[in-house]
């Protein structure tokens, strides 16, 4: 079997497994799976910017929050459903991403400085949203919860199974989209920029334009995730949605899974979420009930992975499976 054929078979198996999962699993597994898919999606989005184009963003919670608040605000005040809200979310995130990207790239900010700029914007927005009373301010924005038993896709109200499938569709869509992106002209240019920006510039690539494109696409995708977030949790607090720890959660998956790979963000999200829950389970079973021990173990696991698998888990596995790591 060729590497590509093998990849297709594995992908098909995974797809079937994911579709069948909610019919055989309990609700707990379903909620964990939904969470994994959410982080797989946001990880995929972040990966476009960092993994493909080499721009390190540590403030992606900004786009999650903007997307979430845009759609939730429309729904809360005007009863306009998320399928309209998502466009507003995308538009806002595109504008925000474009502003940040424009400022950063025009003023020649890169590397650590760019990363800190993204944090600054996210924090700036977090505190700002604490003061927007129209969106609940620090007291939070609560979406009314109704229609628990039926699927109302138009208003994104329904059972956990529905949310699972919506998230699965989003994650699958993101995967397909990123596959296409990576093989498109943009993908090659991004790779060139990531490897050596000056060289890319010298080759006549308009690095500014392509970097902007990466930021904007990444922001828009993350905004869509935000819409899901708003309707899944039904309440938004600036303190939570824009918090830097959420940005870190987003980037852990792709880095652990394998930066710049298509499958890395998915694998990373799965590994980390299952790892976190397994540690909880194991500790509970072992009778260790000291708060904090879990996170210490989690941190140690992160440490071990980053030390011994600097390129992430997926490239290592892919090589073993005889697949190309993209």
């Amino acid at each position, binding site marked *: 079997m060729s590497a590509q054929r093998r990849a297709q078979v594995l992908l098909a198996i995974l797809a079937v497994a994911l579709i069948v*999962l909610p019919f*055989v*699993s*309990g*609700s*707990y*597994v*379903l*909620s*964990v799976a939904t*969470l994994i898919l959410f982080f797989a999606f946001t990880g995929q989005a972040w990966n476009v910017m960092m993994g493909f184009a080499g721009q390190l963003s540590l403030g992606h919670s900004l786009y999650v929050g903007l997307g979430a608040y845009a759609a939730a605000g429309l729904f809360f005040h005007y009863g306009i459903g998320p399928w309209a809200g998502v466009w507003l979310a995308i538009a806002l995130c595109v504008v925000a991403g474009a502003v940040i990207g424009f400022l950063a790239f025009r003023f020649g900010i890169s590397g650590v400085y760019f990363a800190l700029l993204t944090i600054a914007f996210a924090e700036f927005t977090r*505190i700002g949203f*604490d*003061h927007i009373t129209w969106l609940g*301010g*620090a*007291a*939070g924005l*609560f979406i*009314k*919860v*109704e229609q*628990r038993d039926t699927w109302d896709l138009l208003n994104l109200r329904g*059972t*956990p199974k529905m949310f699972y499938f919506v998230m699965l569709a989003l994650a699958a869509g993101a995967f397909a989209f990123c596959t296409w992106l990576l093989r498109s002209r943009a993908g090659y240019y991004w790779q060139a920029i990531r490897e050596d920006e000056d060289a890319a510039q010298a080759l006549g690539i308009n690095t500014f334009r392509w970097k902007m494109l990466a930021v904007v696409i990444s922001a828009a995708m993350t905004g869509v995730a935000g819409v899901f977030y708003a309707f899944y*949790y*039904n*309440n938004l*607090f600036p*303190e*939570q949605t824009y918090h830097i720890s959420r940005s870190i959660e987003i980037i852990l998956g792709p880095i652990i899974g394998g930066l710049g790979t298509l499958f890395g963000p998915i694998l990373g999200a799965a590994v980390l979420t*299952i790892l*976190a*829950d*397994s540690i*909880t*389970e*194991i*500790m*509970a*079973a*072992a*009778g260790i*009930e000291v*708060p*904090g021990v*879990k*996170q210490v173990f989690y941190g140690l696991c992160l440490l071990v992975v980053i030390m011994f698998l600097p390129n992430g888990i997926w490239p290592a596995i892919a090589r073993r499976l005889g697949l190309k790591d993209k």
Partner: protein
Amino acid sequence: MTAPSKPRSPVRRRVIQAAAASAALTTLGFPAIVRAQSKRLKVGVLLPRSGYQGFIGQSCQKGADLAPGVIKQMLGVDVELMNADTETNVDVARTRAERLIQEGANVLVGAFDSGQTVAIAQVAEQRGTPLVINIAAAPQITEQGYKFVFRNFQTARDIVGNGLRLTGDLFHATNTVPRTAVFMHVNDTFGTAVSRGIAAAMPHMTQLPFKIVDTISYDPAARDLTVEVSKAKASNADFLMLVCRLNDAIALRREMVKQRWNPMGIISPGSPGMYEEQYFKTLGKFSEYSISNVPWYNPRAELTHVVEKAFQKQNPGEKFPFHGLNVGFTFEAIMIAADAFKRAGSTDPKTLADAIRQTNIPRKMMLGAPIKFNAKGQVEGIGSACVQNLKGLPTVVLPADAATAKPVFPAPYYKA
């Protein structure tokens, strides 16, 4: 089984259990545990015991830990606790709630913080498992039309109403007539909700003699409150009305001492912070005379004595008044569930929820009317007390029928 949070199984068994648990995770689809008619009520307790709210979560947990013993004695019902740490994170709160239900929790109790509570409430609602909220004040939680969510805690609105009324009572009882107040509040979920409540309620509180001359909201993450206090001091208000959390309350009080600002007193119309142990420990004599008008336990109630005894047995060396609020509401939440279970005689969630709706418990620990849920699942008429820090302990000074000391106002450090 009294304290399942500390199982004493032999090490080997624990290891086997651990292995089994990890194995179970890798195989998909946990077999749904049959909810048979049981003689034992399994209560899933979800609290933020690590992360930012860790200290309150752990305080609440003390109330849960003593509940099975007290309830067995009181109602003759067996309660088994299933504890979960939400890590102060909504994602974790949600998945932990799912896990508890899947493992057979008949009822959930939690979760102190409004955000995490809403996440859990949705799971409870979807799974049709009753949730009894111990503490969470966001009014919206019981406005969502949930059928399985119950709250035995005041909403932010009630807290404010009670708090302001008690403030008036306090002035009346001490024969004082402060004319001005400066209102400082922490700009977080809780603080904002309460401050909005105050803005709405003040115009109707015509019996209050004072006006709010300045409102200062501050960042919960603020590292330094110098400016805030300078500004408040410059307002020359007679007293400070404060809606705070613990750490900022301490920082503020310290800053007041440093800036030599001595108003008639500090009154919280309903917030944590100043009655908490850390406030006393850290500030020593400067913690004295601060006043919090908060939902509180009735120090004279019979149940309080029972719970206090159990608390002291489990936590020798800890002082009950510092944990009373957290312990009391967490205990009552579990008691409500156990009481409903006793009446329903079943762990069937629907039956249990119906039974909870029929709750009528006059013999309670916290102040206020008997525990009865309205159509929205909210207990009305939960009382507040005017709690003043006296001789190193939070002491009930109002209402008179629950008071154990007389209020002191203006505070002795006040110099007119």
